[in-house]
């Protein structure tokens, strides 16, 4: 069974559709289309509300589209004095980028070491890493906060980024990946006099860019969207990420609908781009690893 699976993948896909006939096919497309529309409603609402005036949003009559598109709404989150949205956006960029590059660097090195470098106690080390997988990081936010606050890292990039870099799970994924990396390539490189370090950077990494891209995409999305940890660490508004800022809008005394939805739209936009351009790697990464966050 295992051996047949890969060949099947190419041929098996659209077989069943052929048999459905015209009626079956129409029904299939109607069902998919309706489901698709339902899934797009929330996106539609963001755009609609972001480009309307508040009286239009809160009016008696439901309006599907703005009477005139309020492009001027775009600058409002940035002009707002109650929440420093530009700062929050910048914080999120810094955090997500450093989070992603840090995790990729640290966890891939460790994964490679565990997969390929012979060492007497490598297995014991690996089991210590595995043990951390049993405890989801979200559940241990109190202990982590205790540590970070005693280091004096509350309200800082260090506090936001560094504790999240040591992901046992990402390390585990890299190890599994490197176990399957063709050995011959590295051995040739090492015969040529590159050590482990040289072989890793010159041969292994350049030949694994697909896998790195998949992990990077997932990690970036998770970093950008993280809420609990930034909420705990960002006690001062200057350290808020964009998610914490969005959350604060919901509890504000005065509600400015168009402003809030414009801010939401802006916060989602970078991810939509990441998503559209890197979807291939994302899908591949998920199918390969079965995870996100």
């Amino acid at each position, binding site marked *: 069974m295992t051996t047949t699976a890969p060949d099947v993948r190419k041929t098996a896909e659209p077989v069943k559709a052929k048999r459905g006939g015209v009626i079956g096919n129409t029904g*299939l497309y109607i069902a998919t289309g309706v489901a698709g529309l339902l899934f797009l409603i929330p996106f539609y609402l963001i755009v609609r509300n972001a480009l309307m005036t508040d009286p239009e949003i809160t009016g008696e009559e439901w309006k599907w589209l703005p009477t005139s598109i309020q492009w001027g709404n775009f600058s409002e989150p940035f002009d707002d004095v109650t929440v420093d949205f530009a700062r929050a956006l910048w914080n999120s960029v810094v955090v997500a980028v450093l989070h992603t590059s840090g995790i990729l660097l640290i966890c891939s090195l460790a994964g490679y*070491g565990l997969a390929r470098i012979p060492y007497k106690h*490598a297995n014991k080390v690996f089991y210590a890493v595995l043990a951390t997988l049993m405890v989801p990081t979200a559940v241990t936010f*109190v202990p982590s906060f205790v540590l970070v606050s005693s280091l004096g890292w509350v309200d800082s990039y260090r506090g936001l980024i560094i504790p999240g870099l040591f992901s046992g799970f990402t390390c585990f994924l890299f190890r599994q990946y490197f176990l399957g990396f063709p050995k011959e390539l590295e051995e040739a490189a090492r015969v040529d006099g590159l050590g482990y370090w040289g072989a890793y950077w010159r041969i292994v990494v350049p030949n694994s860019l697909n896998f790195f891209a998949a992990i990077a995409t997932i990690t970036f999305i998770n970093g950008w969207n993280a809420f609990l940890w930034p909420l705990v660490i960002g006690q001062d508004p200057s350290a808020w990420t964009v998610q914490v800022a969005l959350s604060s809008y919901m509890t504000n005394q005065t509600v400015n609908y168009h402003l809030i939805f414009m801010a939401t739209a802006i916060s989602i936009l970078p991810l939509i781009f990441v*998503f559209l351009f890197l979807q291939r790697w994302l899908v591949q990464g998920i199918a390969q690893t079965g995870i996100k966050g």
Partner: protein
Amino acid sequence: MSTTTTRGVAQPAPAKVSKARPRRGLGASSTFNFWLFTGPFLIGLVIFVFVPIGWSIWLSFFEARFTVTPSEFVGLDNYKQVLTDTNFRNSLVTFTVFAAFIVPATWAMSLGLALLVNRLRFMRAFFRSVFFLPTAVSYVAAALIWKMSIFNGVRFGLANTFLGWFGIDNIAWLANPDPPWYWLVIVTVRLWLQSGFYMILFIAALQNIPRELYEAASIDGAKPGWQTFRHITLPQLRATSTAVILLLLVAAYQAFDEFFNLLGKATWGQPPLVELYKMALGQNQNYGAGSAGAVVLTLLICVVTLFQGKIMGFGRGEESK
């Protein structure tokens, strides 16, 4: 070729280790290299994972309000306080109810979408992207759309507008726990956010089902549709289904973002992590009780993840069949 590499992934490490050892010259430096590669990660792991957990266990035996270096040992008092706290116990009930809704709902929705998308011949990539797109949205943003626009308690919310067309009065979706409409809000937001992700897992699994099985079934007279689905597709997806259900369960246990943002000010529908947040970082800053709560929740989740590891097998991805 591709088969051998993917199968290699499932192999445990020791075989490789012993094979590589005899190489001369490299053996001596390999210990150094091992630590060079894994050192940064392991040091961080100790400082930011092991130390906090240990510290927390220690704190949980102390009276520690507003301080993380307490002096008053109180034995198991913090545990007693946490376990008899009605809010904490209610939060476990909330989790149970939540899991009872969200796990089967997401399983069915993601499998349904995968079956639909997998049968499409045209615009397949388009629809896959449509269902997958919410994966990019944060829980906070989604909670905001749900709270401020779809399930806004006043007339101009989308749901109430829709009901208004049929002459039905406004419903206070989140502001009133009786009847508990808030569950509809909470469950649908997560359903929208994560169905597409699990759909991808199911599509990958569907494409791994050998086509011969369907051919053999049709020769045996099985009708395409429910019969083949029930007797071929579903059993073939068993490994993936199990994995998905366990992943959903663990994710539901860690639910925080949407509950915090949708029901932050409410007294109902508070899951474990929100209670923990209030206990440790709310007005009391009770790190002792918060740590005890964290220890209890960690032990509970360990049971689930151990069970999960046993079923899925570490290193044997669920798609490996």
